Every structure is written in C-alpha cells, then in structure tokens.
C-alpha cells in the first residue's frame, strides 16, 4: 500500500547535510524523519524553523566568515 | 511632373522624365506649387486642363531649395514633430506609375580591404553581410517573381557569389558562405585588395544580357571604397550599360565619388537620386531596404509614341496545385526526398517550393498569391493629406474612422469666421469644387508632414484617420479602410476582377 508521509523536503549540499545529521543526533533524533540521499533529507514540518535556526548558529560558530567591509560608503 | 495630380496620369505625361521615387520630387513640387496656385485662381479651368499644363512648368522650374519650412518647424509642438518624422517614412510618391514588377537585379558587394573599416560595428564587412541577408529576404517578399544574383568585388576581380535565381535561400546561403564557407576546401572570403567597378559592371552586364525584355535590369552596388581599380576605360562600360538599359544604384559608405555619380546619372537618365550614402548602420539598412520597392519604368527620350516593338510581354506561367503524398518522392529541383510539394502544370515534375522555374520544362511556376503580393506596387494607396482645423470643422470628424481613437477637439471658431466660411463654401460650390480642388492640390504637393488637427484625410472617401492608421495603412496594409467600407459605384463599372477602390 502506498503511503504518504507529511514533511518538509530539505535540499542541501553534503556538508550541510552532515551538520543537519549532527544537530539531529544531538537532539534525540527529533528533527529528521528520513534520510533520502546525498542531498535530500525529510524533516518534520513543525520542526523546520527550529532546525534552520540551529543550523544558522552552528554555522556561525564553525565558519569564520570573512569580515565584510561593506561599509566603505 | 509634379506630385499633385492624383487623377489618371495618361499617355501625355510620358514626355516628362520621372524624377525618381526618392527625395528629389518633393522639393521640386513645392517650388512649383506656388506658381500653380496663382495660375489656378485666375483661370478656373476644368480639372484635367489645370494639371495638364504642369509638367512643362515643373520642368522649366529649376530645383529650388525648400528653405521656407524652417520657420514652421520651430513652432511645431513635440507631438507634431513626432508625427512629422513618422510621415517622412511614407513613400514620397504614390502615383500609379508603371513599375518594373519583374526585376532582374544584380547585387554587387564590395569585398575590398576598405570594408574592414570599423566605423560600423563590428566592421563594414560584417555589417554589410548581415544587412544584405535581411535585404534578400525582404526583396523576395516584395518581388516574388523577380530574379537576383550576387557578385562580389574582391581583390581587383569580380567574383560570382550566387547565380541569377529566384530562390532567396540560395542567395542567403551564398552570402553566408562568404564568411563561413560550406565546404572545407574553401577559405572564407575576407575583404582584400581594391574593388573594380568596371569589372563588376561588365560581369553584371553579362549576367543580365539574356534576361527577357519585359523585366528590368538593375545593378545595386554596395560600395565602401574610395577608389576603383579598373583594367580599362570605365566610361565605355557605362555606355554599354546604358545601351543595354541597365540601371545602376549605388549605396556608398564613404564620401561621394564623382565616378559613382556619373555611373548612376548616366544609367538612370540623368537622375542622381539613386546614388546614396549611408553614414551609419541604420541608414545603410534603410537605404538598402528602400531599393526593394520596384523601380518606376522610365521611357526614353526618343520614344514619344508607342514603340513598334513593345517591351511588355505576355508571359506564360504555371499555377500548380499542392500535392500531399504519403510516400516521400524526389523533388526535381534539389533531388531531396519530400512528402509534399507542387507539380508543374505542364510537365508534372515535382518541385518543393514556389516560386520556381520548372527544372524540366522551364515554365515559371508560382501561386496566384505571389502575383498578388506585387499589386500594391502597381496600385499604391495615395498619400493622405493633412487636415486643417477649418476642414476638420467642416467634416465634423471626432475619431479615426478605422481605429476609433478620438481626435483632439476642434477649437471653437468665431462667429465671424463661420459666416465667412459659409460664404466661402457657397463660393466654392459655385466654382464647381474648384476651390477645394485647389486647396487639395496645394496640400498634395507639399511634403508629407504633420497635420495641425492630428487628422489625415483620404481624398477619395474624405474619411479622417489618425497618424498611426496613416502609417499602418500606407506601410503595411496598402488599403484605405474608408474607401473600402463604402460601396463605390464606380467600382461596378469594372468587371475585370481588378477593381481598384483604393484610390
């Protein structure tokens, strides 16, 4: 029988996926429903906002962004 | 011959040489109009007589500069100036001249090193190649039953780019082949050396030598150089061209050359308007496209009466039907397998596209629509005249007849004016329309410019049109919606199938 699972499809590159899995494993696997392939993950629809936020903060601490010197004007 | 006579221009006009479809005619007409007006007021002659006298008058008048316009131009509003510009693009002359519908044209391209000049982008050569392809397409659109050949002036010689034929695809492919050769052995024909006008004219003359007499023989030269490196006396060649009634038009890209001027004026019975200079790319394109209009047939000086041996001829032509086949068969023209095509009405050979000369029996095959495409050259739509406020009031027109867009409101007139006008109207009635005729003559003779009331009137049906419809009807449609929307009693007289109501 065909089953339809509600969720949010997240498309990202492999490095981001690794970070997502990392976040997931640290939070009782509360986010990810299913890993689909290298670049796609199925995430609970209700949790997507939180996941994004966590990803953002994780990126901030891990990646040192080049200081943008936009304010030349 | 002035532009004013819009009635039938009979045999009597033939002793006057035609000035040319381009700029020349208008200025001259303007010069003559003043005089004619004076004369017309004195003697209210019957219609025909009034303009019959004109040709001699016009010829007697030297071409005068049209300086009087300047003052008016300053006063014009922006809107009017825009309309002005638009109307300039209209054909200057819409008299129903006999035109050479069946044309034989040799297009000569300059492939000398001056074409590498970069004043046009990316250079003259590439610009020319690009525009001539467009030109060929438009040429056959306008002249479907004509023939063309392309030559190139390259390194002192004149090379044959494509043979005389009526298939635009062949010419376009050949012109493209100049830059991007079709076979690997050929090198691209990059511009090289000097051009030779004499060689080009000789070759063109040879190509046109056997064309039938009912068609025109034209050479159109795109010339970018300032020299011509000739092996012999070019004046002899020019003489030979005149003898073979070849007409040469030259589109130059550099300064005016004396020799070009001479070639053009000698081969065009003294008319130099066929020698034009393109100062930029846009102009080059425009000037090229201007030559797609069939040329006016000019009578020679010595033939005052109908010549014993007329050049006009009755041509046999086939009107094949389209066939659709289930199994592909070979076409006679290219040897390709096709599932459909046309079969020659005489020998049943299958050809794949029209118009074409039947490859097996030499019958000209075409569709009736191809002939119809040329009709608007033969029966051109007359230019519409500007409408004064007075006239607009008289007609009470409020919107364009064909597109129903509203005209600007007619300004209120003074009571005095009205009375005067009434009187005038009465007067004009008594004169048997002479006054109106006169006014129209005047309007007609002037250059096409914007109308103060934004209305343009067709003289035949007296309908008023807006500028956009004016442009559309003259450049694209070639019909007058006003005339065609009324049953013209005159049209019933001619049962010939070529009823022309587009006055």
């Amino acid at each position, binding site marked *: 029988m065909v089953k339809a*699972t509600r969720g949010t499809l997240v498309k990202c590159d492999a490095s*981001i996926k690794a970070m997502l899995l990392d976040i997931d494993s640290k939070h009782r696997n509360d986010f990810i429903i299913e890993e689909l392939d290298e670049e796609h993950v199925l995430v609970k629809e209700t949790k997507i906002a939180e996941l994004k936020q966590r990803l953002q903060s994780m990126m901030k601490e891990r990646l040192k962004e080049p200081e943008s010197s936009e304010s030349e004007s | 011959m002035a532009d004013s006579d819009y009635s039938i221009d009979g045999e009597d006009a033939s002793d006057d040489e035609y000035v040319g479809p381009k700029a020349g005619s208008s200025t001259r007409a303007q010069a003559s109009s003043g005089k004619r007006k004076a004369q017309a007021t004195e003697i209210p002659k019957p219609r025909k007589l009034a303009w019959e006298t004109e040709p001699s008058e016009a010829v007697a008048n030297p071409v005068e500069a049209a300086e009087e316009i300047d003052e008016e131009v300053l006063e014009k509003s922006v809107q009017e100036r825009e309309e002005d510009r638009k109307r300039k693009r209209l054909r200057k002359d819409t008299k129903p001249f006999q035109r050479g519908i069946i044309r034989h044209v040799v297009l000569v391209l300059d492939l000398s090193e001056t074409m590498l000049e970069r004043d046009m982008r990316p250079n003259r050569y590439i610009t020319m190649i690009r525009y001539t392809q467009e030109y060929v397409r438009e040429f056959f659109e306008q002249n479907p039953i004509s023939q063309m050949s392309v030559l190139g002036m390259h390194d002192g010689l004149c090379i044959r780019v494509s043979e005389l034929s009526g298939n635009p695809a062949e010419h376009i492919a050949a012109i493209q082949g100049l830059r991007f050769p079709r076979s690997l052995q050929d090198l691209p024909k990059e511009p090289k050396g000097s051009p030779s006008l004499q060689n080009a004219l000789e070759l063109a003359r040879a190509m046109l030598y056997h064309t039938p007499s009912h068609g025109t023989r034209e050479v159109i030269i795109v010339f970018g150089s300032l020299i011509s490196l000739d092996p012999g006396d070019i004046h002899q060649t020019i003489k030979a061209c005149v003898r073979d009634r070849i007409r040469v038009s030259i589109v130059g890209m550099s300064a005016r050359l004396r020799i070009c001027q001479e070639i053009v004026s000698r081969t065009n019975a003294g008319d130099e308007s066929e020698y034009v200079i393109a100062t930029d790319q846009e102009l080059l394109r425009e000037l090229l496209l201007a030559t797609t209009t069939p040329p006016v047939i000019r009578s020679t000086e010595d033939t005052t009466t109908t010549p014993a041996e007329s050049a006009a001829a009755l041509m046999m032509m086939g009107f094949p039907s389209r066939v659709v086949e289930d199994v592909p068969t070979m076409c006679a023209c290219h040897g390709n397998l096709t599932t459909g095509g046309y079969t020659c009405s005489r020998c049943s050979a299958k050809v794949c596209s029209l118009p074409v000369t039947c490859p097996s029996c030499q019958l000209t095959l075409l569709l009736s629509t191809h002939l119809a495409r040329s009709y608007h050259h033969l029966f051109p739509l007359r230019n519409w005249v500007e409408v004064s406020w007075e006239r607009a009031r008289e007609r009470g027109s409020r919107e364009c007849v064909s597109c129903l867009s509203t005209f600007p409101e007619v300004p209120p007139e003074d009571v005095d004016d009205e009375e005067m006008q009434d009187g005038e109207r009465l007067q004009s009635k008594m004169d048997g329309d002479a006054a109106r005729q006169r006014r129209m003559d005047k309007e007609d003779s002037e250059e096409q410019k914007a109308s103060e009331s934004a209305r343009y009137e067709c003289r035949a049906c007296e309908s008023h049109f807006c500028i956009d419809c004016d442009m559309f009807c003259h450049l694209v449609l070639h019909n007058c919606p006003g005339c065609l929307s009324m049953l013209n009693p005159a049209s019933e007289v001619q049962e010939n199938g070529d009823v022309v109501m587009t006055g």
Partner: protein
Amino acid sequence: MSASSSQALEYLELLPRQTHTKLYEQPSTVLAIFRCMLPHLAKTIVMAMLYMPTPFAASDLDAWFRPDGKREREKALAVLEQLHIVVPQQDAHRRTSYELYPGFARSLRQALEGSGTHRSFGVPSSTPDPKRVTVAFLDEYARNQWENILFYMVGSTVGLANAGALAQDVNEGTKALLRAGDFVKLAHGRVSITRAGFTFVLQETNAQVWSLLIVYLKHAPQLSMSETDVLSFLFMLGSLELGQDYTTSTLSATQLQMLEDLSAFGIVYRSSKDALTFYPTRLAVTLTSDSGALSSSEPLAKSLVSSNRDGSAQGFIIVETNYRLYAYTSSLLQIAVLSLFTKLTTRFPNLVSGKLTKESITRAVKLGISSAQILSYLTSHAHPQMQKTQPFLPPTVMDQIRLWEYEGERVETTNGFLMKEFSSESEYRDVLSYAESLGVLVWKSDAKRLFFVDRVEQISLYLQKKKNRSG
C-alpha cells in the same frame, strides 16, 4: 492567472463537494470562478463542453490536444475535477468520458446568455442617491482604508514615530483579523509584523486583498456566517460596476454583516452604517479581474498602493549598479516598506535615497522576506526610466541580492508529502508520471521508489480511483 487568484484557487480547491455545489448555484459566482480561477486551457475545455449535447469522450479530448500538450491537459483536467466542475464517467464499455457538472453548466450558460432571474450581478439602487459619490472619492476612500491597514502592520516595526497616529483608524475587527491571519503579533503591547505579514505587504494590492479575504473566509464559520454566502457575495462584488450604487435590500443577513467589515477594509463604501445602498470601490471590482493583465487598470490598482499624490502611478524606484537606491516618494508607507531591506540614508521632500547592503538584505531575509520578493517589489515599482532596459534592474544587483540571501540560507525547503512503499515498479512509474504531469513532483529516487510532491490531494484521488477500478 496571477498569484492573487491562485491563492483563492488553492482555497477553493480544498472546499468540499457540497460547498462547491452550493456555490455553483449563482451565475455570478460561476462566472467569476471561470474568469479568474481556472487555468487557461481549463477554460477552453469548459467552453468546448458547455454547449456540447453529449459527454466529451476522453479519447476525443486526447485527439483534440497535441501530443506535446499532454502535460497541460492533465493539469487542466485535474483542476477541473478538483473543483467538481468536470465529472468523469465510465460507460458500459469502460470508456471514460467527461461531463460538466450540471449546476455549473446551467449557471455558466445563464451568465453568458444573461438569462434567468437569479439577480446575482447586483441589483442597482432604484432610487437616486442624494449623496451620490464620485469614483475619485471612492478611490481615495479605498486607498486610505487599505493604506491604514498596511501601515498598521509595517509602521510599528520599522519604528516610525508617528506610526500610532496613522494606524488608529484601523478598527478592532480588522486588527483581530490580522492577528488571526498571523500577519502581525502582539508582543509586549506592541504590534510587530510576522513573516507572513512581510510577504503580505510586498504583494500587489489585489493579492493582498485576497490574502486578507481568505483569512476572513476561514474565520467566517466562527462568526456564524456561512462560507458559501460569504464567497458568493465576494464574487458578486467582483462583477459590479464602479461608481454605481447598489441596493442592500436583496442581501442576506450574513451579507449585510459582511458589508460592515468590508467597508472597514475599504472594499465597499457606505455613507452610513444603516444606509440602504452601498458602493463597491476599485478594490472590489478588481477582485475577479487580474489587475496585472489589464493595462489600463494597472496604474489604477497601483495608485492604490503608491500614495504619490501627484498622480504619477508609475514606478518611482531607481537602482544603480553600485547598489544605491533612489525612491521618488513621500509616502510613509513606501518608505517603511523600503526600509525593510534598504539602508536608507537621506530623505528629501520627494525623495529618499539609500543603499542595498549586505546587512540590510540579510536582515530582511532573517525577517522572512525572500530575495525573490524584494526583486519583484523593486521590479514592479521601477521608475519608467529604468523600465527602458531589459531587465529593469541591473543584473549585478539582482544576482548579488540573491547571493546574499543564499549565503544565509544554505538549505532549500519544500513542504509536502513523501510517497513511499509502492508495491511494484509499474505502480511507482504510473503514479510518478501522473504526479509529473500535474507538475507537483519535487524530487524522486527511482532506486528507492520514493518521490516527493508538494500537493497530494489529486494524487490520493488518483490512487483511490485506481483502487476502485482494480477492486
């Protein structure tokens, strides 16, 4: 179909069959649905079937379409079936044919022919109104009301000092509705705008109106109003004539109640609460006509947005390749919207200037505004001078805005459904190709027999049908 009507279409599609049936009783509703909800080919199909004496055989329908038009055909038919406009049937020989839903067909015919006595296109007031108002007044009224609503949402967020003063005209009902629609939220007694709210503000007026009305519709049952009544009244409003007064005597109680709310939005105008007539404003009459498609009404619809009082309803924004932005406007609302994603520096009486910077864009992205929204806003309000180039905005700026967004957003998300556990390869292929033809397919994995769709209703219908057929 524009973005605005597709919202309404989505809402309509989700309605149950009974609601559809009831809706289709009114010719004006049917006509409005036909005019602005259906995809173009669906209209063609409906019109072809409307006067057809027999059901339209599926094989004939196939033959009518070109082979490469299959995808469009499936899409059109899916929408029609979803809305219960077309009913598929099977005859004894198991051949499928389609028929129009009789009620829909009857109403559409009445609408086209102008027959019947349904009086659903609005009954004009028979007595001349002594206090007749002009179209200009109605436009002004509508613009004021609508701008107040927008300003209420935007003003406080960007912290304009006099925001409160301007927003006081917004009545409590409207405020509650905005909160219910999750466009704004109250935090510490202050109104602040939400993501959905930003999306809302950046839309074109017509789409805004529909967004708000759909929220209104969703909450209609709570106010003990019947959804059908509300919907058909809205559709009727769309077919009215601007500047004409209509009588309220033929309206139902629900509709009378609605009138009050709608006049608060600026969609209709009533001279007083118990007036016997009402005037639809431009917001109402353009409800069912895409303002974007109409060249002449476009500036009018825009004039509702841009409060350039000098009447230039044209665009006013100039963006230079160096990211500088100049906006010829004095409207507080426009300035507020601009300041959502621009670093504004100077303000003159008729001009504000600023710069698109990385910070300003990322800030906007964080608030939930997408780069596409920013770009479409800038494009649709580009100054005529900018409109001469194609595209209107400098490509470098467009690319940079997108890049700034993606820098912050490293993932792309799509809400929807994962289809799995297909019993056989053929079943998987079949459903997959159906989803593909509907255009709902987002991702698939042939190896795992999985695919992801963003809409599931039609697919589940399809599966059900399949089951019935086989079972």
